[in-house]
């Protein structure tokens, strides 16, 4: 523990109130049901291209999403639907983008792997492994330089720990003491290959922390409370000038790497084991143990289901993007002209 006092609307460290717990439950459910809907829409061929689902990993996005200040920044990967939604991006905007519709967050120009909503602090989904770690560090530098106490949070997978940008960004952030939190979502597989088969250490992120003078942090990424507490602790420290953190959150993706991957490389029984530890399942059980009323949870489930249905219909009703957009926004003047 850092022993520091939270300020400026940051969450308290020790106790999680029931309002926050319900927010964590609701958010995990939103991420889950929206992602499941994305999968269904694929099967109906309403979503083209590829997509990288984070079914099973919702507790990490939700834990941070609830703990972050509205003006904090998220940088995530191509597996970024949940992280973008967790900052409050519109579900219609996300589903619309996946479906290539006008209402999409990016007007159909980015697609599944680049979801961004700057107005919500969702500063982009990056599809080149490792690239966004230094970019997040740069945002943190900007916050430090301007003295705003904002924090940049950067999510990435276990596979990212073996690319150069990971190491450059960590060293850079530590020497400049930047307010950036690096969150490795270790779902055990880089893509199709087990991360253990291609990595020199057992914990691909945490076991490298010492090389950058950072503490070794491994948490249960399927426990939204643990994620929330960890997020709050390290974000508070970063806001007060304590510098970066590297967190390895253990989790598991229920589906394959991408749309093309049925994940047949997984040992028999592994998925079933992790389904027992489904973050939403365990969180629901915990809320009931803590005395929440079943009807309250059911109401939330019904509300979120309705929300996803509504967003789906709105996205379906949206037109295909206007062709004029092809030549827009290459440059700040709104156009694409490279000559006079």
């Amino acid at each position, binding site marked *: 523990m850092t022993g520091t006092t939270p300020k400026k609307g940051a969450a308290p460290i020790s106790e999680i109130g029931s309002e926050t717990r319900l927010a964590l439950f609701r958010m995990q459910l939103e991420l889950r049901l929206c992602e499941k809907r994305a999968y269904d829409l694929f099967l109906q061929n309403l979503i083209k291209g590829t997509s990288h689902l984070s079914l099973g990993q919702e507790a990490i996005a939700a834990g941070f999403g609830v703990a972050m200040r509205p003006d904090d*920044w998220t*940088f995530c990967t191509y597996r970024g639907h949940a992280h973008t939604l967790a900052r409050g991006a519109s579900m219609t905007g996300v589903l619309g983008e996946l479906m290539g519709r006008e209402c999409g*967050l*990016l*007007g159909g*120009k*980015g697609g599944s792997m*680049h979801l*961004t*909503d*700057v*107005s919500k602090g969702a*500063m*982009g989904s*990056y599809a*080149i492994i*490792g*690239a*966004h*770690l*230094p*970019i*997040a*560090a*740069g*945002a*943190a*530098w*900007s*916050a430090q*330089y*301007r003295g705003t106490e904002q924090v*940049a949070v950067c999510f990435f997978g276990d596979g990212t720990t073996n690319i*150069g*940008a990971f190491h*450059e*960004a960590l*060293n*850079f952030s530590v*020497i*400049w003491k930047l307010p950036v939190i690096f969150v490795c979502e270790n779902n055990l597989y880089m893509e199709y290959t087990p991360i253990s088969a291609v990595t020199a250490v057992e914990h691909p992120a945490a076991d490298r922390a010492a090389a950058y003078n950072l503490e070794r942090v491994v948490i249960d990424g399927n426990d939204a409370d643990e994620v929330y507490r960890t997020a709050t602790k390290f974000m508070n420290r970063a806001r007060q000038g304590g510098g970066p953190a590297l967190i390895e959150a253990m989790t598991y993706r229920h589906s394959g790497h991408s749309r093309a991957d049925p994940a047949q490389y997984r040992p028999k029984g592994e998925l079933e084991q992790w389904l027992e530890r489904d973050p939403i399942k365990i969180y629901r059980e915990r809320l009931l143990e803590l005395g929440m009323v079943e009807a309250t949870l059911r109401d939330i489930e019904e509300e979120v289901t309705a929300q996803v249905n509504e967003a789906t219909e709105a996205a379906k009703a949206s037109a295909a993007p206007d062709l004029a*957009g092809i030549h*827009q*926004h*290459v*440059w*700040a*003047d*709104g156009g*694409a*002209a*490279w*000559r*006079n």
Partner: protein
Amino acid sequence: MAELTYREAVAAGIAQEMARDDRVVFLGEDVAHAGGVFKATVGLLDQFGPLRVRDCPISEQAILGAAMGAAMTGLRPIAEIMFSDFLAVCWDIVANEIAKSRYMTNGQVSVPLVIRTANGGGSRFGAQHSQSVENWAMAIPGIKVVAPAFPADVKGLLAASIRDEDPVLFFEQKSLYSFKGEVPDGEYVDELGKARVLRQGKDCTIVALALMVHRALEAAEILEREHGISCTVVDVRSLVPLDTVTILAEVARTGRLVTIEENPRLCGWGAEIASIIADECFWELDGPIIRITTPHIPLPSADRLEDNTIPSVARIVQEISQRID
């Protein structure tokens, strides 16, 4: 007007912009305490302090990534990549991240930054510290490409690049760093995307960039004096945006186009200009387009080899005098 070297003009341009806008920050390897390996940024640390002028580890991806993240969130960073060949180390950040983010996010993300880099040959540094790579940058939609030939343009175009809302790759030709020239006093800001006609002739239009502008001017003197060939010389200054209006007009006036390029031949910037001229100015041409380039080889190191690789004044004179009469 004061006489400054090309390298002094770099520092003058940065200092001018840092003094007027505290969002401007500067980072790179050995740029602060050492003042840059080419001494182009001497004095900036003393003038603006360690929060704005920052030394970085040898981490080109981190340098450009940090510059991008800072630019996206309200700063206007200038990042130095020591040698332009090193851009290959961090090309993902340039080509996939900085250049594409505005478009991919439908205009949500803005990346106003400048990447300064020492480009080109003439210093006997060999192929990994001498290549002329402006044509790499020109091939990427979403990034502006500037390459000044004179100290005044260094200051004025650097200031314009820093103020620009779009990312700019700013190529400084390293063998020009000690070249001296008049630079306007006081605040001086030029405009991106404007070529400059340095001399006008009637027989051919030479279009050149950076170091090649100086060789073109020298060659034009010799061609006039010894061969009676009168040349227009256009300094392109900015490849993106490209001032095709000036180039088309000057080619139409003489009926001939010669490009002089330091980049290796294939897909050099002159090929794009040749294509535009062939497309839009064909009937004004009196003869074939001539491209004088570095051959399509990595640059050799030895002075005798390097001097016979990059277009020289003698080679320019020879090729033009043989092919234009």
